[in-house]
């Protein structure tokens, strides 16, 4: 088993096969989540006309090459708050706004979470479908998918465009290094960590970082708006 992990870590040079570039339609209300259709019919649930999925998204899905600077090069496995196992590459195609928190945190994290919501509030609603706000847990032992889901519901962050991730200790350490986030466990329930919100384009390349708590998010919002145009 151990060896298998080693092998995967030694060989991560795989890239996913390219998808055909055809017109893709999706319900504007996302009644069926991310489900897409190749024909322009109506949504079977809300009966609305389907909308063609944004060209930028389509383009990024079609290209199979990941750039060297992309976080999608990380092959660690993560669990979402819905209990789904994913790799970061599965987040490809949407602009990502990422932050590292842990749910038992009483000091900085509630403010970091508030910062994320403040950013979200400044984004025009119709752009949210091209966005994914991702909260990555620093504390993978405590923050199980269930706990993350509870946290999401409690903080009214359970919409489609919010994602919570539980990783492995080494996966989290690696991810923090990509974000230049520094953290240390200072007691079994407390971590000390730096407060950085990072914006990635749909290819997983770092575009902007906002450091500190309660800082002016104008630049961050601008970066996101530009990326979702």
């Amino acid at each position: 088993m151990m060896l298998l992990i080693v092998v995967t870590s030694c060989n991560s040079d795989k890239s996913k096969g390219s998808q055909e570039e055809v017109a893709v339609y999706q319900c504007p209300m996302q009644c069926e989540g991310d489900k897409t259709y190749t024909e322009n019919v109506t949504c079977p649930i809300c009966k609305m006309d389907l909308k063609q999925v944004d060209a930028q998204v389509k383009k990024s899905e079609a290209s199979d090459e990941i750039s060297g600077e992309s976080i999608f090069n990380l092959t660690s496995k993560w669990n979402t708050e819905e209990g789904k196992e994913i790799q970061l590459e599965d987040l490809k195609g949407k602009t990502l706004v990422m932050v590292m928190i842990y749910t038992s945190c009483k000091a900085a994290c509630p403010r970091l979470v508030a910062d994320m919501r403040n950013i979200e509030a400044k984004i025009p609603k119709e752009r949210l479908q091209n966005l994914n706000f991702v909260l990555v847990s620093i504390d993978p032992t405590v923050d199980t998918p269930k706990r993350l889901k509870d946290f999401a519901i409690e903080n009214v962050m359970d919409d489609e465009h919010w994602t919570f991730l539980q990783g492995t200790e080494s996966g989290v350490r690696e991810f923090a290094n990509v974000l230049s986030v520094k953290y240390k466990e200072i007691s079994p329930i407390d971590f000390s960590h730096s407060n950085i919100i990072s914006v990635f384009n749909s290819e997983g390349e770092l575009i902007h970082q906002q450091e500190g708590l309660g800082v002016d998010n104008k630049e961050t919002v601008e970066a996101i708006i530009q990326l979702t145009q």
Partner: protein
Amino acid sequence: MKTKVFSLLLTCLVFQTFMFGQAKEMVLIEGSRYLPLYGRDSTVVAVKDFKMDVYPVSVEEYMTFLKDNPKWRKSNVKGLFADKSYLSNWESDLKMNESVNPNSPITNVSWFAAKAYCECQDKRLPTVDEWEYAAMADETTKDARVKPDYNARILSWYEEPRKELIIGDSPKNIWGVYDLHGLVWEWTLDFNSVLITGESRKDTDKDSNLFCGSASINATDLMNYAAFMRYAIRGSLQAKNSMKNLGFRCVKDVNELK
């Protein structure tokens, strides 16, 4: 897919045997509790038993790794995992500078590369606490930090003009480990622990307003300037950085379930 995994497994196994064949010895470091320069609230930390590479990874060993893992060659490496200084003193992908002794420690490697190297051998990078624990020993004592000449000797390393770096040139410590001091600095697994980093100044929890100066007041042993330097270096690094005086060695857990 299965056959692919299997062949990879085989490659890694062969590679591993080869690496161990190169007298890549490890020694047992018996764990204990100790007070590091920076601990949790200046309390003791517990280090479990672990095995540590006797020597830092050499240029020659790293070359073998590059032969087997093309993606870590300098022309292939992803920008996410290594910046431009990665292997910058290498003439080409598999050729080091002629003048460099193959038995000198590999440097100019990023944290990601060091981590991958260790994982490929079923090992890992040491934690800061583990590294510091092993490194506080001298030839005769497990904790030599109280000896004045322990610090003086490490500090004299900083003053010395640079000479050729050869692994295993200086005496081994009581555990049987060579070159923790006096050769190159070494990567640690959790070097990105927040403590005396730039970011931590902005943190609002316990370490709030931790300025460079006040950081040293947190240190448990103000005389331990050498250790302070190491923590400071760690705090200033990013995982994709590499430096010409920063190498690494690997460790392994003991009693690991196979």
